[in-house]
């Protein structure tokens, strides 16, 4: 028997040693990828974090387990996203958060959107009568005064329990130890390669020996870890009035920008009264201007309140037609009325009224796209090819029922591409969110917040929190979020099914329709009908980041638990306990 075992071992060894090098393993053959788009709801009974990167979710969850509340966990997640998803948001940018305090039954909004430097003017991007696109996007002039750190700090001090030191710990660890780059990270890194080369050079910390990161490569950012350490030691003053701030000003001015140390030192986050509206027996709490997403979501919901959505059906031609037309009318309002309410009068009451929504609804012709959406040619100078992808969203619910819905951004992926020397973080290009038209209510000017499309929100049903939701995606944000809300409330889809569902979007420029952009999963028969009704259709990828990367938490009645849903168009995930 002993000899037999030896013989068997010899044969196995022979097979392994001699034949193994000759084998081509099946990886060179057809291996269909695992379908990451399969809807997946994450369940938790007490608390949950949903965000665009698993390490950021882990960071938030750790804080919740350590006794932090939803606000602490949201800031920890937001900071961790700076390390794990650095191309979408970070301390070089800004955003908004909606907070629900369960004990007080109070909803509040923190505005940490960037502001224009004091030397800004309505024609700052014009030269010889032409808009200089580069100045708006990849130039020192593109950088607005960052607000993220001030907003996080404000939220922590007023509504949190923990210190910056505690909530930044995971961000430091992620930046220092690094992580394997995902296909999403890699593809975005490649997409923005030209910008990184131009603005930060081949030695950029966001490139590996001058090339974009490939999936599986380890991305470490020790300089960002050091920046966070400095903030932990010296507080936000190091950023707004100290050595980090000096590096920001130097980097911006070297690239032709106008931001000064005084601009940076003057930045303050603001607490705002939330925008509120009803839809049937649901209540929507969201951000007011200078965020436009919340307002437009309310407008869209109100336009559809009296329409037979359920009868028309999910992804039906009627539904998509009415939605598309409503969006095009809304973009006219956006160009005519919206800007920073600190500096202009925004007719908010009129725009969110049910009467106004009904007036828009009456303008929509069944089965026919309108030839024009405005008698006034507003917004003619706006970018007709807004293809950029951007931003991130996170949601947190804690054991006490406190909630945070937070959207933050550095605008386009990899922002302006400017990295202040030795800091490891990217500066935003949010000045591009100002209008190109010097007469626009959203024209750049000293201290103005650029109009944002963000729309973080919390929906209540019968007085109880029901849905926490938000998304990146530029001007697609409010369209995508409203579609998700309809998918859940009207069409009965589960949360992640609603998030993964095919999306569409359109808008108008100067009162004229732009194409109807659709994910390729929308049925061909529906698209054919829409073409017959006069819509020009542009088919995009099946799951296209262009339409955002939504994250949400659906809270079951009587606190029976909650479901998280995270968008597979990016690397979204959720976890709870």
């Amino acid at each position, binding site marked *: 028997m002993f000899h037999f075992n030896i013989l068997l071992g010899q044969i196995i060894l022979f097979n392994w040693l001699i034949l193994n090098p000759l084998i081509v393993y099946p990886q060179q053959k*057809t291996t269909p990828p695992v379908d990451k788009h399969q809807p997946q709801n994450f369940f938790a009974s007490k608390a949950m974090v949903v965000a665009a990167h698993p390490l950021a979710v882990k960071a938030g969850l750790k804080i919740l387990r350590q006794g932090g509340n939803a606000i602490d966990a949201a800031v920890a997640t937001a900071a961790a996203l700076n390390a794990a998803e650095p191309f979408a948001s970070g301390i070089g940018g800004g955003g908004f958060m909606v907070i629900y305090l369960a004990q007080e039954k109070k909803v509040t909004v923190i505005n940490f959107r960037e502001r224009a430097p004091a030397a800004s003017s309505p024609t700052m991007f014009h030269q010889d009568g032409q808009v200089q696109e580069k100045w708006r996007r990849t130039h020192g002039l593109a950088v607005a005064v960052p607000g993220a750190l001030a907003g996080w700090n404000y939220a922590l001090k007023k509504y949190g329990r923990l210190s910056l030191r505690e909530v930044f710990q995971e961000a430091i660890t992620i930046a220092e130890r690094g992580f394997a780059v995902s296909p999403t990270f*890699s593809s975005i890194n490649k997409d923005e390669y*030209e910008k990184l080369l131009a603005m930060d050079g081949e030695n950029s910390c966001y490139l590996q020996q001058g090339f974009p990161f490939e*999936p599986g490569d380890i991305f470490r950012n020790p300089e960002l870890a050091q920046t966070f350490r400095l903030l932990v030691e010296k507080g936000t003053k190091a950023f707004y009035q100290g050595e980090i701030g000096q590096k920001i000003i130097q980097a911006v001015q070297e690239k032709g920008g106008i931001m000064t140390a005084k601009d940076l030192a003057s930045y303050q986050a603001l607490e705002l009264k939330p925008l509120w509206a009803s839809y049937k027996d649901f209540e929507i709490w969201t951000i007011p201007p200078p965020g436009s997403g919340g307002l437009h979501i309310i407008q869209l919901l109100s336009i559809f309140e009296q329409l037979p959505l359920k009868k028309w059906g999910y992804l039906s031609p009627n539904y998509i037609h009415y939605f598309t037309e409503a969006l095009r009318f809304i973009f006219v309002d956006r160009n005519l009325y919206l800007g920073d309410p600190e500096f202009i009068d925004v007719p908010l009451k009129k725009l969110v009224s049910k009467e106004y929504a009904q007036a828009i609804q009456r303008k929509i012709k069944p089965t026919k796209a309108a030839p024009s959406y405005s008698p006034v040619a507003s917004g003619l100078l706006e970018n007709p090819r807004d293809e950029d992808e951007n931003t991130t969203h996170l949601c947190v619910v804690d054991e006490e029922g406190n909630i945070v819905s937070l959207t933050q951004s550095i605008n386009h992926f990899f922002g302006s591409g400017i990295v202040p020397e030795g800091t490891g973080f990217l500066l935003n290009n949010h000045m591009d969110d100002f209008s190109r038209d010097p007469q626009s209510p959203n024209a750049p000017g000293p201290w103005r917040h650029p109009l944002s499309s963000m729309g973080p929100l919390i929906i209540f049903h019968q007085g109880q929190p029901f849905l926490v939701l938000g998304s990146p995606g530029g001007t697609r944000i409010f369209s995508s979020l409203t579609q998700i809300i309809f998918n859940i409330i009207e069409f009965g889809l589960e949360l992640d099914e609603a998030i993964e569902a095919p999306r569409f979007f359109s808008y108008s420029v100067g009162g004229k329709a732009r194409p109807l952009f659709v994910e390729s999963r929308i049925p061909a028969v529906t698209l054919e009908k829409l073409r017959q009704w006069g819509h020009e259709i542009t088919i995009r990828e099946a799951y296209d980041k262009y339409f955002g990367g939504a994250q949400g938490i659906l809270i079951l009645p009587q606190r029976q638990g909650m479901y998280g849903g995270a968008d597979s168009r990016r690397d979204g995930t959720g976890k709870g306990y």
Partner: protein
Amino acid sequence: MSYLKIKLLKLPVYFLLILGIALLSLDFVPVNQANPLQVEPNNLPQFSSPVLITSAGQSAEIQLAGVIAKRASLNAELVKMATAENLQGKKTLVLVLGASLKGLGAAGLDMNQEISRVSSLLQACQEKSIPVLCLHLGGEARRGELSDKIVASFLPLAQLALVVSSGNKDGFFTRICQENNIPLILIDRASEAIDYFQKIFLINLPQ
């Protein structure tokens, strides 16, 4: 233990040996047979410079090709939307495959216009006997309906293909190259193309 028993016990052993060999011949095939088009490093086809680098689909990978050419010390001109006129004085066309709606939007093109531009360019290459080297550097992320349409349209006209292997997980490039008898080089990462460029274009760098 009797002789017969030992013989019987050895039967599964022989079976395993035979099965192993059978598996190799049926499913797992030796490298040089699995991908007969995979080029051996010392048997690379040769191309000449100067080179025109352009995009088919306006993906950002054209910038990667530019940096690769620069680091390989290749005499190359990068023109994102090259036309036949740009071929003047060029001896090779490097075509970077991969569609990006963002890139197309920035260039003010739609897919049909882009396909038409590249088709005209390739026709000019055929008329002038300029060989075409196709690159796909975006990996798995630069696959999808639009990119696959670009690849299927233009890769068959190449004399050599250099592809980041994660984009070929489903054998898409292997299949097209086999059908059109195009040598295929699979690399793990874009930066590996520098070395291949130096070999393909016979660039001798100072030691």
